[in-house]
């Protein structure tokens, strides 16, 4: 009964970060920068959201990039080219609003170079001058540097430990760009919540419009459960249908962080349970 979605290519980009290229023409036809899919590995799996990192309407393919953080993403990391998953739904969420703003800064933290890529590309195609900042913990975790450079007028790479590029957090070059005097019309920041929060704090004094892609826990991704509620400008929004992009200066970051921790105990239990069942993989 259930249709299977085939992984045409599975590859490990850097340790713990994987890319899947799916055969998914229905989604590829419609996907726009900033949208995501919800996927379920198999009958017992949970539904998890992942950003569409690339899509090709002609070839009918969709690319996702994910980082291993818990049981589901660890399990997905074991899949190989030619394997299939049970369910893939999308494109979900509102596309990122693209127009010619002038000069824009795109900030990507960690695995988020993947979700930033299509946005940077679309902004570039719309005529913007795109300055990108790519930050990672260390050299080993950097991928798609050339790809991002290709769609940017300027690329700054930072690592936390200085093993590659500049030794800094992404907020440091971001602040310098804002201080430099060049008029920046928009900042797009995607990465771990804490990074997005600090990017928001960095841009706020400059009054520069800043967009973040929020990543609360989701189930359906279609507005049906309210699990993904976030507070923006004092109003409750469902991130899956009203977002995932929101005005960074209006986001209630503490609420987001608290809600993301809802299942910390259960996630640990799931991981332990899985590791004992297939110790060989852990």
């Amino acid at each position, binding site marked *: 009964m259930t249709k299977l979605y085939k992984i045409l290519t599975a590859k490990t980009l850097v340790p713990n970060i994987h890319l899947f290229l799916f055969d998914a023409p*229905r*989604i590829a036809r419609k996907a726009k920068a900033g949208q995501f899919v919800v996927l379920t590995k198999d009958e017992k799996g949970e*539904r998890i959201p992942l950003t569409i990192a690339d899509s090709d309407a002609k070839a009918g393919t969709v690319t996702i990039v994910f980082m291993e953080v818990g049981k589901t993403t660890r399990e997905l990391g074991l899949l190989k080219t030619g394997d299939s998953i049970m*369910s893939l*739904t999308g494109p979900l969420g509102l596309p990122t609003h693209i127009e010619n703003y002038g000069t824009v800064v795109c900030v990507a933290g960690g695995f988020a170079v993947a979700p930033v890529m299509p946005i940077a590309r679309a902004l570039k195609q719309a005529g913007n001058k795109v300055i990108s900042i790519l930050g990672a913990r260390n050299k080993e975790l950097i991928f798609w540097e050339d790809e991002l450079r290709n769609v940017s007028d300027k690329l700054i790479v930072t690592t936390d430990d200085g093993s590659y590029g500049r030794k800094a957090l992404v907020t440091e070059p971001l602040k310098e760009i804002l201080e430099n005097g060049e008029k920046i019309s928009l900042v797009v920041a995607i990465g771990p919540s804490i990074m997005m929060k600090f990017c928001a704090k960095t841009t706020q004094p400059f009054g520069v419009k800043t967009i973040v892609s929020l990543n609360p826990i989701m189930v359906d991704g*279609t507005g*049906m459960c309210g*699990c993904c509620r976030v507070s923006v400008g004092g109003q409750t929004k469902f991130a899956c249908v009203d977002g995932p992009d929101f005005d960074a200066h209006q986001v209630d970051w503490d609420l987001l962080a*608290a809600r993301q921790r809802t299942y910390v105990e259960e*996630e640990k239990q799931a991981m332990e349970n899985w590791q004992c069942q297939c110790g060989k993989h852990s």
Partner: protein
Amino acid sequence: MPRQDAAVRAKNFKEVATGYTPEMAAEEASRCIQCPKRPCVEGCPVNVDIPEFIKAVREGKMADAVTVLKNKNALPGVCGRVCPQESQCEAKCTLLKQKAPVAIGRLERYVADWETKNKASMPPGAPLPPPTGKKVAVIGSGPAGLTAAADLAKKGHRVTIFEALHVGGGVLMYGIPEFRLPKEIVQNEINFVKSLGVELVLDAVIGKTDTIDELLNSGYDAVFLGTGAGLPMFLGVPGENANGIYSANEWLTRTNLMKAYLFPTYDTPLHVGKKVAVIGGGNVAMDGARCALRLGAEEVYIVYRRSEAELPARREEVENAMEEGIIFKFLTNPTRFLDDGKGWVTGMECVEMELGEPDASGRRRPIVKKGSEFVMNINTVVVALGTTPNPLIAATTDGLNTTSHGTVIADEHTGKTVKDKVWAGGDIVTGAATVISAMGAGKRAAADIDKYLTSL
């Protein structure tokens, strides 16, 4: 009808009612006096030939009973379990005035379950008519969509159902719990619809994956919207986004569709506190509360702002809930949620209510008692205040008319919307209602769509 003992069933997800034995079914069927006026048939929103199927049961002609039932109702196993017969067919039964009405719902369930067990001995269904070459897109695979699809397929039209979720069935799969409606039964009934040649496309969110106009432009001759009322309402009081506060949709979807009660064998988690408060008084609230009990909560409250008499849930389900140990707090309304400083809900500030003059719905309006604030200590809240249609379809389709509640406006008798080639029925038109009313709407729309397609 035999049921699992309340103390036992409150700890498991197995079906509460275990169904008639053949002897019980024969005895109940023989109570039907086969009166010529057949008022029960009028009481049924899809007009099942009730006396005929009961007669067949009495005579032991079970295969005939199945055929009669399925002639009008593609989902008898579902309806026999969840329909409010007490306010429909059974409310019209001639015997009602003398003693108890014939237990039509239980007999319907018995017949459907007999079919499941005896598939092999069923004669093949009537052959399908030759294909008409006309294509219909049905959006949503709840009872409205499934019924419309089955009826249209029986007329020879090519039907494709597009469903947003990864499983078909709508509320029957994600909302109503296993212990009231086993999911295997729903899937059997979906398989029956598929056996008529209907194609079910899952993971297709119409409005995103394709729009209605794109479907019409890509060769579908007609569209039926059966997308239900899936948008949860919240109270809108302070603190409602705290961890541990769920919409009923989320609570039930995690539990039923994603099988959180089997965590960690199934991956989807659910956080169940010791004390759970469910806000609301409908079927959804009863289901939420009874799930909480089965998921291991120690104390489960139903918090309802009116009194017992106004509870909108089916009486049978209220009684089941009470028997299982759910504690009802009537005339109580939450005004604020308290948390532990780390984002987790710990309490609920409530006010007591009293009933005033009847409001527009005819029910007495609850009014706040001054100075009655008190705090209930709880760890989990399930908000079951009702749902409205998801705005996605209306927002992405030009030329549909909607009401201020977000429901799509359609003709009551035909389901036709003001948009060319588009019909709608079920909860998307009525707001949250019942399985059988959604099926009735699907049926009426299918008849009108068929009329339109044959006129082309």
